[in-house]
């Protein structure tokens, strides 16, 4: 559905994105991840036809975003970062305006507005001024204007920025409900959001793609870890655990008090040493208070990829 090939964009001497390529299949929700200033918004702006790439091409539904800009924009719903909306309009009249600009026929316009108001839960504010509603509702108006006219492709640039946790969950659920019907690019620098909603993730940093995979595979690539809380002498415990087969590193994280310490044990890939750990702790006469395995989060992967790039 979306094909991006060798896309490069320079602003004067600054290279915002450098030769990036990826694709999004129909009905897929793609997480587009990167730290601030990585080039996410630049890529998205090229996709929406706001400015052309310096080189390379971007296609939506087989149509070039620059040559067939108007046709592409008919298939596109876009929520820009910071949700720029007309504060001086009422929610329903704004959505009506968006519908008519998006070519929804007049006789269907009102129905379409009602539909997106229901989908996005905007009934309580439909006759209020956009400038006077809460940030959560504002964000939903932004999504509502994106899905009005039922476009096939949705591009959402940081849709949950500045929302409280409850609102984030609601928006996330709304986005997840598009899965299978619409092709979605969800740009974000909030990692849990992406791992929860997206089937696939593209991570970009400093204008280049550093990883592209499912969230599961990305987190699976890193070695797994075990967290332990043990009552006993630190140094001896660390030394003892290091000697165990399959353990690559042991470190002390914290001293919660009461004579116990927390440890992180890193294991070799594909090995499960939990049993061995428990056994050797108990056999040494120390007290094992807690043990849990922790998979590396997408956050860890992200930080590793992004910092690797810097080195």
């Amino acid at each position: 559905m979306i094909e991006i090939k060798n896309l490069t964009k320079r602003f004067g001497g600054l290279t915002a994105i450098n030769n990036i390529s990826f694709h999004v299949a129909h009905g897929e929700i793609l997480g587009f991840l990167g730290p601030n200033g990585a080039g996410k918004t630049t890529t998205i702006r090229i996709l929406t036809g706001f400015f052309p790439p310096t080189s390379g091409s971007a296609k939506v539904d087989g149509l070039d975003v620059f040559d067939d800009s108007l046709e592409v924009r008919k298939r596109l719903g876009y929520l820009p970062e910071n949700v720029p909306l007309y504060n001086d309009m009422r929610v329903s009249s704004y959505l009506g305006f968006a519908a008519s600009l998006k070519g929804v026929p007049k006789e269907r316009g009102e129905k379409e507005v009602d539909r997106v108001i229901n989908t996005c839960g905007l009934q309580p504010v439909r006759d209020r001024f956009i400038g006077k509603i809460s940030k959560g509702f504002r964000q939903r108006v932004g999504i509502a204007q994106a899905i009005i006219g039922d476009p096939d492709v949705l591009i959402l640039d940081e849709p949950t920025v500045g929302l409280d946790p409850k609102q984030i969950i609601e928006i996330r659920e709304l986005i997840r409900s598009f899965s299978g019907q619409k092709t979605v690019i969800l740009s974000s620098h909030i990692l849990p959001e992406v791992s929860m909603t997206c089937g696939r993730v593209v991570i970009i940093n400093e204008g280049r793609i550093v990883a592209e995979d499912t969230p599961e595979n990305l987190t699976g690539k890193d070695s797994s870890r075990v967290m332990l809380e043990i009552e006993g002498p630190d140094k001896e415990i660390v030394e003892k655990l290091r000697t165990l087969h399959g353990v690559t590193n042991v470190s002390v994280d914290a001293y919660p008090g009461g004579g116990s310490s927390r440890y992180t044990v890193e294991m070799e890939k594909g090995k499960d040493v939990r049993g061995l750990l428990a056994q050797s702790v108990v056999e040494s006469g120390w007290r094992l208070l807690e043990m849990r395995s922790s998979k590396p989060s997408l956050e860890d992967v992200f930080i590793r990829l992004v910092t690797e790039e810097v080195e």
Partner: protein
Amino acid sequence: MAVVRRELYVYFSSPIAYVVLTIFLLLCGYFFYSAFAYFSIVSMQTMRMPYAAGINVNEMVLEPLFSNMSVIMLLVMPLLTMRLFAEEKRSGTLELILSYPVREIELLLGKFAACLLVFCLMLALTGLYPLLILIYAKPDIGPIITAYLGLFLLGSAFIALGIMVSSTTENQIIAAAISFGALLMFWLIGWGQSFAGSGLGKILVHLSLLEHFDRFTKGLIDTRDIVYYISFSLFFLFLTLRSLESKRWRG
């Protein structure tokens, strides 16, 4: 069209249109009143003088009124046009609206038309003054109609230039200041005739917004004047379109 409706909605749901209309009508009303009052005094006096030549209500009241109206327009029109693009650029809504399947030219013409409609309302309300004269005196109707045609053409030229300036900046104050300065420059450019020499002087006079307007108030319709205003408007609308599209080809 949706853009026209939205712009009109913004003009009239915010104080912009009301404030501009009120100021414009107040000033015009004052000019009209003082010109008319003066005229009635003078006409009283001439009635008592047997040899005095007949005085003309067109020349003494309406002509100055229309010239004054054009000067007030010079002051208030930038206030109508300054926000048209500058505000959308600042708030980022321009980026969103350009992601809709809308051509730049539709957007531009929509905004232009909306502003022109507000301006027409403004003009229509001043129609009260000639109407009052019609009741109490016998003016020539022709010059009134041509003057309104002239004011309309002049207004659309002002709007076109104002929109162009608005499309180049994110700041409304800057937009208003530059369009006011540019309009004033085009207004006064003809003054250069006296020192610019005959060739250049003629060009400067022809460029002047003021020069072309005077004939309309006297009841003259000259195609040169009409062509001037229309090409002035089209030229600035064209520049606006280029400025809107520039980010598309400035790879």
